[in-house]
């Protein structure tokens, strides 16, 4: 039995590098073999390319924002142009980058493999979801070419319906359409996870990455239709002057905020939950330990998905929402921090006495723990009603959500891309440069966003292109950090692209990690497995070196239901 542990390594029974053999990349040739593919792995690559383009587009808008804010006067762009810059930055990053990022790229690629299946349940719908995403993106690009939008990514009424003269409807239609791509991905994941698990893969043996995506998919399916309808209502009010949100027509602007945040608070969990799933994989792989409290991490994902639907009013404390509702939403917001904290504690406990190694994916993972904690705790500051009256719509809020969305979600995304890059491409990237980039990303990130906490607390509002002189030092720091961060993001682009052609060929399991994806060749064949795998043990069954009392290959002591 001892030798079985060794089979996760590249040699022996398990096939190693597949670049010279048949694999999903060389199985077919030509542009149409990609554009009409139903292979979940190729669709993941399509998404990877498109969201990367979107990421750099969103980054360009952010560069405009940061350059303008280098000086107190509004001198680089006028206020209308500035409004467009931050709006387009937000829309691109939220709807066209972060929401699809981990699910559509890593989730698409890995979920079938992790559960021992050939593909997702509905391969054609999977391809359709990418085309829908592209159609949504196309509408948004047309809106951009016609001059963009300036309502903020939140499209608050009555401004968006009654006053704005920009391309609100075009942009809204783009978001509306891309929402369906998100719904279809979620649907596909849920059905796949329910129906296509390998024999022996019980719910409580699934990798936590899969659990996290299951919870994410629930939110996508239950929440996205609401924002779609809300956006439609904005369009209808603009076009037909139907009084839904505009008080002059008999509507209520706060209703818009309720409907918008009913989706958009859970949507922040669409953005972070998959990242949490990546985290559990990274932490266990680089500590070589069973994860601490598997069930708690799994269930806390579901708890976040459900409780996350009950807190949206914390965005509306100063909107005119009733004080009573504010109190209820405030209390519930404190509750939702609990399952997030459970995860942070469990990852930290997993590190304890593990054989921690510092490969680049792990550097992102450790960065995530710290930055997510800061982001989550400042969320609690904001969820305290009294404090939020001071801090609402200041740079403190901007810093809060960037700590979670950039310091959390994008760190997890980058860590995951590095971790699974050998599996996806069959090539290793240069570890030295990856570590340099990870350190620079961390430094650039903190230099960009930490000063924003301070300047926000001191009272600098968000969404203005000019500010009082005394805020300049902190803003210059932030702009300097953003420049560093921009460069740091380009480095992985360069060496990852380089590695495609010249990187060392990757073995099946370069990290010595557990999980079905590491038992097949890198890159995998079109149908992933030659034989149907049978799962005989829990996830993360790492043989702990100091613990010789049990046979590492033996099945776990307790049988999970």
């Amino acid at each position, binding site marked *: 039995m001892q030798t*079985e*542990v060794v*089979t*996760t390594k590249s040699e022996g029974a398990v096939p190693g590098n597949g670049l010279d053999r048949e694999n999903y990349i060389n199985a077919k040739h030509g542009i149409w073999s990609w554009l009409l593919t139903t292979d979940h792995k190729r669709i993941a690559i399509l998404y990877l390319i498109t969201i990367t383009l979107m990421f750099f587009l969103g980054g360009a808008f952010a560069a405009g924002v940061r350059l303008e804010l280098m000086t107190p006067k509004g001198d680089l762009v006028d206020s209308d142009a500035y409004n467009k810059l931050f709006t387009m930055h937000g829309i691109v990053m939220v709807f066209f980058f972060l929401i699809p990022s981990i699910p559509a790229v890593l989730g698409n690629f890995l979920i079938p493999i992790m559960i021992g*299946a*050939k593909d997702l349940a509905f391969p054609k719908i999977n391809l359709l979801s990418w085309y829908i995403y592209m159609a949504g993106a196309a509408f948004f690009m047309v809106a951009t070419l016609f001059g963009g939008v300036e309502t903020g990514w939140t499209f608050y009424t009555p401004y968006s319906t009654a006053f704005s003269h920009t391309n609100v409807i075009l942009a809204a239609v783009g978001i509306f359409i891309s929402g369906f791509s998100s719904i279809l991905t979620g649907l596909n994941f849920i059905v796949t996870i*329910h*129906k*296509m698990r390998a*024999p022996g893969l019980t719910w409580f043996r699934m990798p936590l990455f899969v659990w996290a995506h299951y919870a994410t998919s629930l939110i996508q399916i*239950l*929440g996205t239709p*609401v924002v779609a309808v809300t956006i439609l209502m904005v369009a209808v009010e603009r076009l037909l002057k139907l009084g839904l949100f505009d008080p002059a027509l008999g509507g209520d602007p*706060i*209703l818009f905020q*309720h*409907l918008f945040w*009913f989706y958009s608070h859970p949507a922040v969990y669409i953005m972070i939950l998959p990242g949490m799933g990546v985290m559990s994989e990274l932490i266990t792989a680089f500590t070589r330990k069973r994860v601490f409290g598997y069930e708690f991490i799994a269930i806390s994902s579901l708890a976040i998905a459900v409780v996350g*639907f*009950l807190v*949206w*009013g914390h965005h509306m404390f100063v909107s*005119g*929402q*009733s*004080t*009573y*509702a504010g*109190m*209820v*939403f405030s209390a519930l917001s404190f509750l939702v921090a609990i399952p997030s904290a459970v995860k942070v504690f469990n990852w930290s406990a997993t590190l304890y006495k593990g054989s921690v190694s510092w490969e680049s994916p792990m550097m992102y993972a450790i960065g995530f723990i710290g930055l997510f904690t800061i982001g989550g705790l400042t969320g609690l500051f904001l969820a305290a*009603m009294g404090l939020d*009256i001071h801090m609402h719509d200041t740079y403190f809020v901007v810093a809060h959500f960037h700590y979670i969305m950039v310091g959390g979600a994008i760190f997890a995304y980058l860590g995951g891309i590095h971790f699974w890059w050998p599996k996806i491409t069959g090539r290793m990237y240069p570890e030295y440069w990856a570590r340099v980039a990870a350190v620079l990303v961390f430094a650039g990130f903190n230099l960009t966003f930490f000063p924003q906490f301070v300047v926000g607390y001191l009272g600098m509002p968000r969404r203005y292109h000019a500010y009082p002189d005394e805020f300049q030092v902190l803003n210059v720091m932030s702009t300097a950090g953003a420049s560093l961060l921009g460069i740091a993001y380009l480095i992985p682009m360069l060496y990852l692209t380089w590695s495609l052609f010249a990187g060392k060929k990757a073995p099946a399991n370069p990290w010595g990690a557990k999980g*079905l994806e590491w*038992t097949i060749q890198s890159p995998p064949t079109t*149908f992933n*497995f*030659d*034989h*149907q*795998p*049978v*799962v*005989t*043990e829990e996830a993360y*069954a790492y043989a702990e070196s100091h613990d010789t009392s049990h046979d590492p*290959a033996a099945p776990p002591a307790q049988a999970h239901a």
Partner: protein
Amino acid sequence: MTETAAVPAENHDSHEDHAHPHVVPVRTYILVFLALMFGTAITVGASYVDFGHSYLNNIVALAIAFSKAALVVLFFMHVKYSSKLTQLAVGSGFAFLVILFFFVFADYLTRGWLGTPGS
């Protein structure tokens, strides 16, 4: 460790999905349709009656609308005859709709309760 065995690479769909669909007699459809028409009629009728408070009128209209929606979902959409999993999926959709309405009204109906901070 995970081992591979020579099990055919098929997925283990349960076969209940392929069972014969429940056949609903046309009579049922007609009855449901008539009930829906009746519902429409009393909605219109009720809108002419003053129940005292305007919110009572709303409650009556919404109650009728809700019953009609339930009929459509249960019979026309076959949820009554579907598997437990389908019922769960439909049920959770509605549960989340209830959450949406519940907390929106937790705002609207309590606007006067505690005053506005700062005023």
